[in-house]
Each structure stands twice: as C-alpha cells, then as structure tokens.
C-alpha cells in the first residue's frame, strides 16, 4: 500500500491538474496489474462493500486512543472526515507491515463475513501496523468514498498517457458493470472484447449551461428539445436482453420492469439515450418528478406503484443500431434513424420520441422556453444538427438552456458545520419564512455562497448562537438569504407543507431586514402556481 499512499500524497500535495495527471500516469505505468485495476475501480466509484459499521469504528478508535467516546464525537465535525479523525486520534503505529493495495482490499472485502471479535482484531491490527497516511487510506477503504481530488476524467486521461490508448476509447472500456473480482487489468483495458460485456454502456455526452445565445450562429444549425426533469438513462438491447443504465453508471434494469418487454420489438444491437420519466398514459404527458422519485431506489416495485407511476424512456438519441456505434454520425442522421425506429414500435412500448421544437429565430425559441414550466420542463436543450456524440462534459455543440429558478427571501434560523474542505465552517443552513409572527422552517441549503461569505457567516454564527442541539446551532433570526430552487411540491412530511427541488443560496441579502422576508402564504401561492 506504500506505493498507493505515495500516489495519494503526491495528488494531495498539489493543486495543479497537470501534476496530478503526471503522478497518476507514473503510478499506472509502474504498479502491479491488480493494484492498477483496483485503483481504477476506486477512482471510478467502485468499492468493496462496507464490512464494519462506522459506529463500531468510532468505538474502537476511542478505545485504542484511550479517550471517551463523546470526545471522539466532538472531534469528528472539527476534522470533517471520519477516516481522518480516526487516523489522527490513534497512537503511533507500533509495527510495520507492507502489503499491496490489493491485499488490503481483500482484507477489507472479507471483513463482512467475520464475527465481531475477528473484525475488531483485523481492524486493530491494521491500525497498529500502518503509518498515518496508509492508516487514513485503510479507513477510507473500509468506509468507502475515496474522494481524493481526482475525477474519473482525470484518471482516464492519466491512464491514456500510461497505456497509450486513446482517452475516449478508455472512457468507454471503463464503463459498465465490472468489478476487480470480475475482470483483470488486461481484459478490461488492453484486450478489450466488445462481446464480453453485452451490458456495457457508452459514456454519456453532457451539456454545459448556455453562456451566450448570440454566439451560437444561425438558428438553422441548431435543434431544440424540452429539457425534462427525470433521470438520464441509456437503454441497451443486446443478446436479447435489456440493460438500463443511469447517468451515475448504475445498472438499474431491475428497478424498471417496464423495459423487460423491450427485446420483443427492438432488435439486438440498439442503444438509446434519453430521459426516464414517470408517464401519464391517459394524457400522454410526463408526471412530475415526485412520481418518479417514488420509483428511484426501489429495487422491487409494488404493483400499485407500477400502475400509478409507470416509467418510459423519452428517447432523444440513438447511439448504436444493428451493433454499429453511431456516435461519429451527425445528430441529424442519428435522429432520423431514431425517429424511424420509434415509428415501428407498438403503442404500448415504454418509449417515446423526444420531439424537436420548430423555431425560426432565437426570439421564437425564447418564447418557447418561457412556457417550460407549463410543460413541467426545466427548460430547453440545444444541440447542433451536425454534432457528434462526444463523451463527458464538452462545450460547443450541446447546451442546456434552463429556465430561471424560482426564488424566495428567507431567514436563516439554524446552522450546522460542513464536512471535507468545509470542515469547521458553518455551511449547512435551515431557512424559514414568516407565518404570522412565527418563523416556519421550509428548506435547507448549503451551496451558493463564496468561501469568504462562509467564513463571515461562520464568525457570526459563533457569536449569535441561541441554543445548541448536538452539531446544530439555533441562531438569532437576523440574516435574509435569497433562496433559488427549481420546483416546489406539496409535502405532508414537512411542517411548511412544501418541499423544494434543488434549493440553494442565490444571494445574501444584506440589504433586507428580517421582517421583509417572504411568508408562508407566498410559498403556498408558488405551490399553487408551479406545484
């Protein structure tokens, strides 16, 4: 694990992208195959199942550090990371064992099947033989979530440098349902066999938020569609099987049994890109996101839910046809094929064609965009007619042009410290609106302010705490923030009766006295209009 720890240290000791890629590439050139494969897996979010609860880890760490558990718990929010807190409180290691990363990962993976005493012994042995950084990494491997400032994109770039395989090709090979247990570095990266994994999706092409409409050139070069508020998905039909992938590279076929019949009428070697939406078949329009929300995360779907919130794929692109990769074809060609293919489907097929919206001028389009909320859409997608299907987030050919968010002025009433790089700063706030003379909480938000603003509010929170509830501080109602959000829904679970979608802080309204914040009635009015 020393080599992996050295890599981590090198990545952690620079803020410069090139230096990070160079360090990773050097690692990928030298490390043993199984370690390289595990590193790829970890940096692409694949990790061993957690075999020990964090509760146990906390108790053991406090015990070994000879401090009361309450004191350990006090340290955690200050450090902002459990693995690091443990590594910091433990006494220095007493021995030294150098095992490979793979070796340690196997230990971590096997923790799950051990009895309590054996688990504890294994973890304590590791703590007492690993130096600080390796100890921190070991904890990270147990608790999952090794975020070390390297995106999958950077990792792929480094791997491309080390293997001299093209980056886009690698991005595709790294997709899909593999784990280090099911493949080898050679099979996955070097001797890639497309037949080997019928479920393998293509890397998604992602759009940036539109910056400058005028820079797009003639409107006739562009195609517009509504941008729906669902789940981006890729539907694959190969070897008479359907495979459904979410954008987060999760295989979600089983959660959406609607697609089990797809191979009956869609030929092998077909891949769609589209939006999963809960559908109202009576009106042939999408239901709101709430309906889909009930389906997400449910591994098995009760009959009633399947009936109340049936899901379709709103298809907007065709990535593969008859087994041929179409990504290097222009969008207009892919769309023509998609339209023809959807035309052949029976009416009860769980697929719809995402309609292109006709427009002559940008002004036309702006008017169409202004009606987005009436259609329960988030805005528009703009795609160049001759655009290829690229991988990852790229500027130039695809843009999302979202509607402006809804906003409301609210009073901050609770604050909680953040984690990670925001440890020790108060960054997570609860906001309220006036209900008569009372403040009714209605949302939390934790993004949108600059670091300087968070520092300022943190200093203020420390001096204006009314009460503490564990890590949460109730503060003097004094500051007003403009909260932006994408949607609003009725919610019986919340005291305010509403739930917001993507709430964040748009602005700190230093100019607004607390009495001038919005009211619960204002919020309910928004619910009536947009809910």
């Amino acid at each position, binding site marked *: 694990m020393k080599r992996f720890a050295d890599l981590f240290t090198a990545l*952690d*000791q*620079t*803020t*410069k992208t090139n230096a990070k890629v160079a360090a990773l590439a050097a690692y990928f050139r030298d490390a043993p195959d199984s370690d390289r494969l595990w590193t790829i897996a970890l940096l692409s979010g694949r990790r061993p199942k957690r075999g020990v609860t964090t509760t146990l880890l906390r108790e053991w760490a406090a015990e070994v*550090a000879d*401090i*009361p558990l*309450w*004191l*350990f718990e*006090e*340290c955690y929010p*200050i*450090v*902002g*990371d459990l693995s*690091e*807190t443990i590594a*910091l*409180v433990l006494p220095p290691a007493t021995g030294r064992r150098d095992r490979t990363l793979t070796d340690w990962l196997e230990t971590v993976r096997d923790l799950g099947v051990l009895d309590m005493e054996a688990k504890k012994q294994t973890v304590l042995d590791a703590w007492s033989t690993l130096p600080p950084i390796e100890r921190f990494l070991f904890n990270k491997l147990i608790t999952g979530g090794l975020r070390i*400032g390297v995106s999958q994109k950077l990792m792929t770039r480094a791997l491309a440098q080390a293997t001299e395989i093209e980056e886009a090709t690698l991005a595709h090979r790294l997709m899909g349902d593999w784990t280090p247990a099911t493949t080898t570095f050679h099979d996955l990266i070097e001797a890639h066999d497309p037949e080997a994994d019928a479920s393998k999706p293509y890397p998604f092409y992602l759009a940036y938020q539109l910056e400058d409409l005028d820079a797009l050139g003639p409107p006739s070069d562009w195609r517009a569609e509504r941008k729906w508020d669902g789940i981006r998905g890729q539907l694959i039909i190969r070897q008479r099987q359907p495979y459904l992938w979410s954008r987060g590279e999760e295989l979600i076929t089983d959660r959406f049994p609607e697609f089990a019949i797809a191979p009956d009428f869609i030929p092998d070697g077909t891949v769609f890109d589209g939006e999963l939406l809960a559908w109202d078949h009576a009106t042939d329009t999408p239901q709101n996101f709430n309906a889909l929300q009930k389906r997400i995360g449910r591994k098995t779907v009760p009959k009633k839910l399947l009936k109340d919130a049936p899901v379709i794929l709103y298809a907007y692109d065709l990535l593969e046809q008859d087994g041929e990769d179409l990504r290097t074809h222009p969008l207009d060609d892919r769309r023509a094929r998609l339209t023809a293919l959807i035309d052949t489907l029976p009416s009860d097929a769980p697929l719809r064609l995402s309609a292109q919206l006709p427009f002559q001028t940008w002004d036309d389009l702006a008017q169409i965009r202004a009606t987005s909320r009436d259609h329960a859409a988030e805005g528009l997608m703009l795609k160049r007619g001759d655009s290829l299907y690229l991988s990852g987030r790229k500027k130039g050919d695809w843009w999302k042009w979202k509607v402006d968010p809804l906003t409301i002025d609210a009073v901050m009433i609770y604050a909680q410290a953040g*984690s*990670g*790089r*925001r*440890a*020790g*700063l108060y960054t997570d706030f609860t906001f309220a609106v006036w209900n008569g003379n009372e403040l009714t909480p209605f949302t939390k938000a934790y993004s949108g302010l600059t*670091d300087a603003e968070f*520092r300022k509010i*943190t*200093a203020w929170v420390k001096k204006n705490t009314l009460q503490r509830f564990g890590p949460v501080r109730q503060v003097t109602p004094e500051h007003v923030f403009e909260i932006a959000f994408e949607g609003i829904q009725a919610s019986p679970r919340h005291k305010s009766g509403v739930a917001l979608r993507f709430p964040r802080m748009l602005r700190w309204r230093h100019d607004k006295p607390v009495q001038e914040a919005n009211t619960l009635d204002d919020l309910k009015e928004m619910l009536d209009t947009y809910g």
Partner: protein
Amino acid sequence: MVLQFQPEGIYCPAGDFYIDPWRPVPRALITHGHSDHARWGHGSYLATKAAAPVMRLRLGDISLDTVNYGETRQIGKARVSFHPAGHVPGSAQIRVEVDGEIWVASGDYKTTDDGFSEPFEPVPCHAFITESTFGLPVFKWDAQDDVITQINAWWAANKAAGRFSILGAYALGKAQRILANVDTSIGPTLTHGAIENTNAVLRAQGLSLPDTIRVTPDTDIKANAGALVLATPSGMNSTWVRRFGQASTAFASGWMSMRGHRRRRSADRGFVMSDHADWDGLNAAIKATGAERVFVTHGYTSQFARWLNEQGYDAGVVETEYEGESLDAADAEVVE
C-alpha cells in the same frame, strides 16, 4: 479570588490591574505582543523586556514598563512575575501571588522548544488559566526537526524545478521560527514587509536571524530565482504573490494537520507547525503546574473543560476575546 473574569479582561483586585484586557483599562499586564493580547488604549503597560520592542512597533508610543523573566514585582498586595511561555520571543505566563495563593495566566503557550523563543517553563500554582486553541486529541504535532526537514525538501525541490517557494506564516513568531531553523544554504529568503518589520525589531534586540531580503516594488524578483518567500497568511491570497510567477504555495499552521483546512486554503502544501501547544502539550503543561483549578479560555473550551473535569480537575470555561490561531480571520497575520 486572586484573579477575576470581568467584561474588560482578567482582573486582579489585590493589585488593581488587568492581564491581557480587551477593553481599555488603566493598568495592563501583557503576556505577549500579538494583537488579541496586546491591545491599544490602556493607561500603562507592563511586559517582558523581550516582548517590549514588538509591542512598541505595533502600539506606538505607549507607557510601557518592562521586567525580566523571573523578576518579582509587588503591585499593591499582589506579587507578580513573568515566566517564559514558549509561544513567541518575549511571551510570558504571568504568575500572581496573593496571601500565598498562586494563580498563573498563561496567555498563549507551547511546551516544545522551537530553538528561537525562550522555552516554556512550568510554574507551580493553585489555579491555572489555559488556552485551548488545539484542545482536542486530533491535534498532535510532529517534532519540529521533522517539519523543518519537510520544508527544506519542499524548498530544495522547488528551487531545482525553477519555482519559488511561497510560505504563509504569521508575521510575529512563526515566520522567524521558520527562518531561524530552515537550511538557508538552499537559497535566498525574501520577506513580506510586515514580516521584515518584525525581523528588524527582533534583530535590534539581539536575536539572531539569517539574512533576508525585503520585497519592495523595486525588488529584482528574477535575481532571486528559487528563493523561499515568507508571506503573511492574508498576503497569500493577494496580488502580492502573483509577482513570483512559477511558484509552489504552502502554509505553516497547526490547522494544516487537517486535510479539509488544507484544501480550503488551496495551497499546494501544508506544514503542521504551531506556536500553540497540541493536545499532549496542553495536558502535560496543566499537570506540571500541580493546579487543582483550571480555567479554559479561547479554543475548544467546552470540550477541553469537560475532559479536564473527567480527569479530576475543577475546570471551567471562561469567555474571553482572545482568538488563538486562525487562518480564517480577516487579519490573520496579526492575530495568533
């Protein structure tokens, strides 16, 4: 009570004076020159001889009387003496004895010898007033030699790669501690004006520091390629550092032991070096005083006081306006 906690600061009724008051008072005894302890506006000041020059630099023409470490002064009914706190040059713990009862106000302190400040001396007492800036068991400092070795290696590697090494450190204390200990044979050292002002004062009072070059608008940056550049923490975020072009940036602070804080500063490196005691240092210092009562000021006060109570001390939290070591404060170069 020998000392009382009042809205103006820590007060001694027997001697009618305050220690490190944060509101203007007629008579102030000052532990050290950092701005949250030595404030402007008091009638008269008493501090150690070694602390006096920096206080004059920062506070201007004040009525300042000085004492040597260990020298006893009778002030009213109180016997007062100053003892090294190891925090920065001239820093002191103030011992106050009234009718045989001894209290010690320690200001800011560290228990390890930094090779530059007068090393900390435990002072036996009945009641001890302690800081708690790093009063949690996650704070444990590496030996200074190890940290200096890391800084030397970083500097040498940057120099070899044609980069400057810009290191953010407090203008009083940390900057000189680093300067006095790094391997200056690696290259020249450039300093921010606020640091060089302090250097000049400390040199004038007889402390030995390696040669440094003050950065001014006229400084020939290129002629000093690969230099170590000592900057104030707030200078690290300003246009001041951009002059140096190719550079690696770092901070030296106790907070750098935590990744989250390190990443938030967006510096390449963080060197864990503090002029405050770590967890073990705080606990050892308190034990060495033999005190039964402990008053916990600035830092993780409630947690540390609870811990001390569980260890058998009679400990309580005292609200003060001292700020400890903070990289998030707006004027971080002067508050330590």
